[in-house]
């Protein structure tokens, strides 16, 4: 074990050279490279943090936008629902009004037809009723209708009150006994004679009775002495018939209205 001092000096020199070489070639460059990489990694981390923060902001913004969109969507749906409800209501009202209008038109038409029917009925009923009554009287009572009508008219003349009788007699005097008895049909001579006798007994002994025809008066007689008139006809009965038919139509119409109200 001995120390070779020349070798020691050489080794010191060798070692210092090695320190210098490694410092230039190894430690310096690698340390710098590591620091650069570290700084780079720090930068990337900072960048990642920044991007993360941006992403978080973006997320919050998108979330808010989505909420807003959702609220807008709900508002739109609610408005559309209200509009649809209003439209439905309006259409229903219009349809109801249209139905009501149709019903009114139908009612008007019905009333018109009723009126026409009644008018026609009234117009034709007299003849029919007359014929029916005549036939009935002929078949069951063996009497002629004209005769029955004459008898009835005579009975009515006999039932005139005293004041009317006086007025009529006065008028007959003034008219020199000219009296007209209008009927819708031609009276038989016997009926004419009967009426003439009754009129002379009742109003004027020399009465000149005329028997004109007028189909417009219907089933009955119209006795006219100057300005005074005594009338009897089946019109009153026909009026009753018309009123009854009218009441029947109105009752039917009420039932129909109630049925329509029940449907709506």
């Amino acid at each position, binding site marked *: *074990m*001995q*120390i*070779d*001092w020349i*070798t*020691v*000096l*050489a*080794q*010191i020199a*060798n*070692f*210092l*050279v*090695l*320190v210098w*070489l*490694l*410092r230039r*070639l*190894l*430690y310096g*460059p*690698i*340390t710098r*490279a*590591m620091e*650069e*990489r570290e700084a*780079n990694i720090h930068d990337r981390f900072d960048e990642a943090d920044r991007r993360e923060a941006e992403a978080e902001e973006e997320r919050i913004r998108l979330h808010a936008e989505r909420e807003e969109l959702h609220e807008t969507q709900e508002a739109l749906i609610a408005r559309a629902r209200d509009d649809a409800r209003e439209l439905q209501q309006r259409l229903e009202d219009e349809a109801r009004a249209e139905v009501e209008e149709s019903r009114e038109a139908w009612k008007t038409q019905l009333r018109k037809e009723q009126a026409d029917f009644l008018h026609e009925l009234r117009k034709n009923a007299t003849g029919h009723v007359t014929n029916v009554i005549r036939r009935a009287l002929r078949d069951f009572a063996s009497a002629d209708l004209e005769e029955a009508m004459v008898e009835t008219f005579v009975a009515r003349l006999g039932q005139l009150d005293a004041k009317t009788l006086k007025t009529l007699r006065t008028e007959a005097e003034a008219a020199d006994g000219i009296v007209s008895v209008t009927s819708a049909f031609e009276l038989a001579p016997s009926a004419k004679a009967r009426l003439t006798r009754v009129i002379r007994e009742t109003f004027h002994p020399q009465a000149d009775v005329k028997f004109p025809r007028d189909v417009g008066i219907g089933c009955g007689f119209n006795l006219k002495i100057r300005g005074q008139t005594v009338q009897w006809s089946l019109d009153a009965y026909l009026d009753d018939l018309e009123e009854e038919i009218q009441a029947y139509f109105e009752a039917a119409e009420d039932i129909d209205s109630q049925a329509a109200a029940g449907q709506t």
Partner: protein
Amino acid sequence: MDISPDQWIVLQIGPLGINATILFTWMVMLLLTLSALLVRLRLSTTGELTRWQNMWEAIISEMRTQIRDVSGQDPGPFLPFIGTLFAFVAISNILAIVPGYAPPTGSLSTTTALAICVLIAVPVFGILEKGLFGYLRSYFQPTPLMAPFNIIGELSRTVALAIRLYGNVMSGTVIVGILISIAPFFFPVLMQLLGLLTGLIQAYIFAVLSMVYIASAMRAKGNGNSANGGKHD
């Protein structure tokens, strides 16, 4: 038995004889320099690293950590000196498995040279840190009476450093030599493997102790002698 490579003259250039210590030291230096050049030429600051760079970065990173742990300071100024000490001793010892190679660290001249370098480095770093008077004052702590002991301690630890490394490496070589004569096939291989381990441990101890001595010289007053009896192998 020739146990020192100093007496093994490999090359004779005129009157100057190049012994094995110097020759193998140059080889180690060449290896380290070539390795450093390989890294330097293909140095990358991005994520794509060569294997050499990766290896050296791992080693240097660990060196910096150890220096920081021991000194408690920025490892930058100490890294070239301490790192080269470690790398040189480690490579010198690892190459001992190569047949025909004699580790330079098995020469007392080499370990003395390294210990002298540490002996010089300690006051240099101390003066750089605390100034000339500040450093000299540490020899007179805690009392001027302790100055001779401090100086003796400084010298003795340098000697201890040199002899510790020399003794460990030399002993490994001697043990292998003895075992070869006794059991030439099996035990030398085991001892060579053990030699790799002790070689690395010696490199680590040498570097860390050097750092401890330097760090103790740079510490504040009153702590100057605390590292004297710190480490033993």
